[in-house]
């Protein structure tokens, strides 16, 4: 392996990328068009918000729990089904009919009443725990539902910040580590980069073959391994830029 040769060909390939308008289009403009078209077709861009089906099991006989269920029903994001017992709700959850099940505990109303009586005195509150079961198969539901419930509860309590007498606890054995924008988009970006790489390398080869450059390079002492290494190196540098452009477009489009 002679690095002088590899370096020279890699530089040449990079210069080509940034000097040829057609290639610049493929790297920077195509991702933008792709993301915007794809986003408009399938994403939340300008479309309606998704609605989650959730089941509610009310163990509390007080009026405040009914008011809380109404508050949940009033959000446009949730479609609330009331269940008489936990078992039926769990069955529907496992069958995918609902994406989450909320268990309102027996002391829910009492807890809220204690809070309303002395909002600034946490020591006098009766603490209660709302249990939340989530559909493990739905990544979106596990990410989206808990914050919605928290927000509805906070609004219901007229509360701007914790502490709260009612905790929302996730009962399922699933990890609810928040997924970053990068983690959410990375698989798509990597797929895009691979497709892009194949397309670009093939195009580069065909072009060089057509105009006789490949033949000319074959008359020099460069080995096939050195030639391939230069191509791989160049496109390893180009592909992240294209993916980065695509990623920025995704963020911009709010996907």
């Amino acid at each position: 392996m002679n690095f002088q040769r590899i370096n020279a060909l890699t530089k040449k390939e990079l210069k080509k990328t940034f000097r040829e308008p057609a290639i610049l289009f493929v790297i920077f403009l195509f991702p933008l068009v792709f993301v915007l078209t794809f986003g408009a077709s399938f994403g939340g861009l300008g479309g309606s918000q998704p609605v989650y089906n959730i089941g509610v099991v009310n163990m509390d006989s007080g009026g405040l729990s009914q008011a809380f269920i109404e508050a949940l029903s009033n959000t446009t994001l949730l479609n609330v089904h009331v269940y008489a017992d936990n078992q039926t709700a769990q069955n529907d959850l496992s069958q995918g009919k609902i994406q989450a099940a909320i268990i309102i505990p027996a002391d829910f109303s009492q807890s809220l009443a204690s809070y309303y009586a002395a909002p600034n005195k946490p020591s006098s509150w009766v603490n209660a725990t709302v249990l939340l079961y989530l559909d493990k198969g739905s990544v979106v539901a596990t990410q989206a539902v808990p914050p919605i419930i928290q927000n509805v509860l906070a609004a219901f309590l007229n509360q701007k910040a914790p502490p709260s007498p009612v905790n929302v606890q996730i009962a399922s054995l699933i990890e609810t580590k928040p997924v970053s924008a990068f983690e959410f988009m990375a698989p798509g970006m990597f797929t895009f980069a691979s497709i892009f790489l194949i397309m670009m390398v093939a195009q580069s080869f065909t072009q060089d073959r057509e105009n006789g450059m490949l033949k000319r390079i074959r008359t020099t002492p460069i080995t096939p391994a050195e030639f391939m290494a230069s191509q791989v190196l160049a496109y390893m540098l180009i592909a992240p830029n294209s993916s980065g452009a695509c990623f920025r477009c995704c963020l911009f489009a709010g996907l």
Partner: protein
Amino acid sequence: MGEFAIVMENVVKCFEDVVAVDGVSLKVAQGELFGLLGPNGAGKTTTVNMLCGLLKPTSGFVSVGGYDVQKENVKVKGLIGVCPQETAVYPYLTGAENVELFGNLYALDEDTLRYRRDMLLEKLGLTHDAHRKVEKYSGGMKRRLSIVLALIHNPQIIFLDEPTVGMDPQSRRAVWDFMRELKKEGKTIFLTTHYMEEAESLCDRVGIIDHGRLIALDTPKNMISQNRVGNLEEVFIKLTGRRIREEI
């Protein structure tokens, strides 16, 4: 290197049912300027491609610089400089960048590369345009640059495949002078052309190839006198019964 720079012995090259080169044998001495003449499709480029190791002969033996082209391909590549028939230069690089790229492919050190780049661009009249992108060059300038790329590493054996096609007469003369200069430096030059005038004025010996067969091999003077004609063009007409076609 041995006595002969280039040796071909009974070389045949077939492409499926077409015989492109049919039993060609020739020897080119060191320091000789040899011209291979023939119309388009006669087998000139196929012959050059076999000599450069780009094509494998169907049968026969080819050696360049004393090395078997098939077995010692890497050594041969270090010795030769090839200017192909196509104007193979990168259009998106500048003239100087093209030259530097090829210098690096031959692993030249920085000083040598800079010296040879400037010297060759100067000799072929490209210094002024060295930092312009090649896509802005005229056809003749691209061909001259193609010659520079072939010579950047100071090769001992040079293959020029129709180097002056499409050049204006002035550029052509300049390239001819340059070839004579290379010959003076002791380089072996294997030139293919279908310009009879070019072969007549430059070459020590010429071979005439038609339909893949080498039909004559001698000095231009001998060929003309033996056939009792006025020039090489008439030699070709006499030998093949037809006029050489010139298609660009």
